[in-house]
């Protein structure tokens, strides 16, 4: 069952070196026509001319087809559609994303968009996978050298500039799973404080009135606002902001009904 590892090319010539020299000479003749080098600053692999099938016959193994669409390079951020949900920052394994305030939000709830430190980013693409609105995605741009360390920190505006340059973006976007966990309410704990509804980036939480129970004799009703959040699961992006702002820890992840 073991494969034969007998040398397929034995040294046949008495004087030694004919085969390797013939091989090198064949390569020499091949590459006289066109070596497989890409003259980089002038030719680029992402150019359309390299988007061909591998040219086995001519001996130039350059390019194996449309390889570039999926490449993970610099991010592009569409500030206009960003909902400040923080999901990118939470999903970053390298903690290179910081949410910074950008103009456009109201003073009470400032709009926050990701600022990415490319000195830390490992280009894993988890953030763009996590982005519920598709506003953060990865382009194929890779030239990022700079003499200044501080220039490697891309502010949201700079990321938006990348977006406006209409670079090719990763085409493969992941679908939302069918049965997704959703946020549920532990109703007896709720005090109706409106924090979740106020901070929800997609405004999918509405506060509805709950009937105030009548107090039994001797029982003291809790001091609370008699409202409860109702979460619209189809609009919810599952960012968990409401859970983190809830003062009573009454929101939690539950399974889909």
């Amino acid at each position, binding site marked *: 069952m073991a494969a034969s590892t007998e040398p397929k090319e034995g040294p046949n010539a008495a004087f030694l070196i004919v085969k390797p020299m013939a091989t090198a000479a064949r390569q020499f003749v091949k590459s006289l026509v066109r070596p497989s080098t890409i003259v980089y600053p002038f030719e680029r692999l992402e150019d359309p001319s390299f988007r061909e099938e591998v040219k086995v016959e001519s001996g130039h193994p350059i390019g194996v087809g449309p390889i570039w669409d999926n490449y993970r390079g610099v991010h592009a951020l569409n500030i206009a559609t960003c909902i400040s949900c923080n999901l990118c920052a939470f999903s970053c394994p390298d*903690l290179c994303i910081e949410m910074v305030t950008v103009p456009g939000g109201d003073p009470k709830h400032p709009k926050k968009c990701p600022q990415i430190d490319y000195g830390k980013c490992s280009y894993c693409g988890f953030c763009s996978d996590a982005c519920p609105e598709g506003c953060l995605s990865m382009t194929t741009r890779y030239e990022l050298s700079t003499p*200044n*360390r*501080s220039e490697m920190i891309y502010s949201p505006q700079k990321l938006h500039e990348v977006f406006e340059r209409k670079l090719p973006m990763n085409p493969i976007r992941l679908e939302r799973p069918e049965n997704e966990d959703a946020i549920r309410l532990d109703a007896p704990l709720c005090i109706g404080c409106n924090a979740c509804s106020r901070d929800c980036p997609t405004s999918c939480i509405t506060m509805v009135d709950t009937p105030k129970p009548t107090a039994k004799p001797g029982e003291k009703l809790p001091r609370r606002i008699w409202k409860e959040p109702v979460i619209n699961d189809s609009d919810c992006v599952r960012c968990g902001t409401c859970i983190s702002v809830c003062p009573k820890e009454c929101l939690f992840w539950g399974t889909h009904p």
Partner: protein
Amino acid sequence: MGTDGGTGRMTSEEISGRLKEKLPEAVLAFEELPGTAGRVRFRAESALEVFRVVRSDLGYDHLSMVGGIDWVEEREVIYLVWSDLRRNYLLLSTRIAARDAHIESATPVWPSANWHEREAWEMVDIRFDHHPDLRHLLMPDGYAFHPLLRSFKLHEPEELEVKVRRV
């Protein structure tokens, strides 16, 4: 996961039976572990006997890895062994008290345990008695900490200060 039908293969029951028979006191338990023949929990004091039996009687002649796990109060040492005869893995594990954790070295039985035990000593602070060369392997000499202990916490480094190169 291993396929059956080869010669010289033993089921997990046979292995556990053989172990119990040979080492009635040293072996504490024999558990199922998917992907292996099983997981043998043994008493740390009789480690060397267990190794000898596993190697020569059961035929597990290849030591894959030695690892240490810190369970705060006690530390676990795992030995993953493979038998060319049986074509499966066997996991040996033992627990020792975290205070002055030490166990007999497996190098007399499996020479390949050398570096594994050096690493386990410097990472999880388990001393291996009679180890031929117990010194630092991955960290510099004199490194005082044992990083893979649970009490050793990682933290973000302080902000970089970027020097300007003189022109």
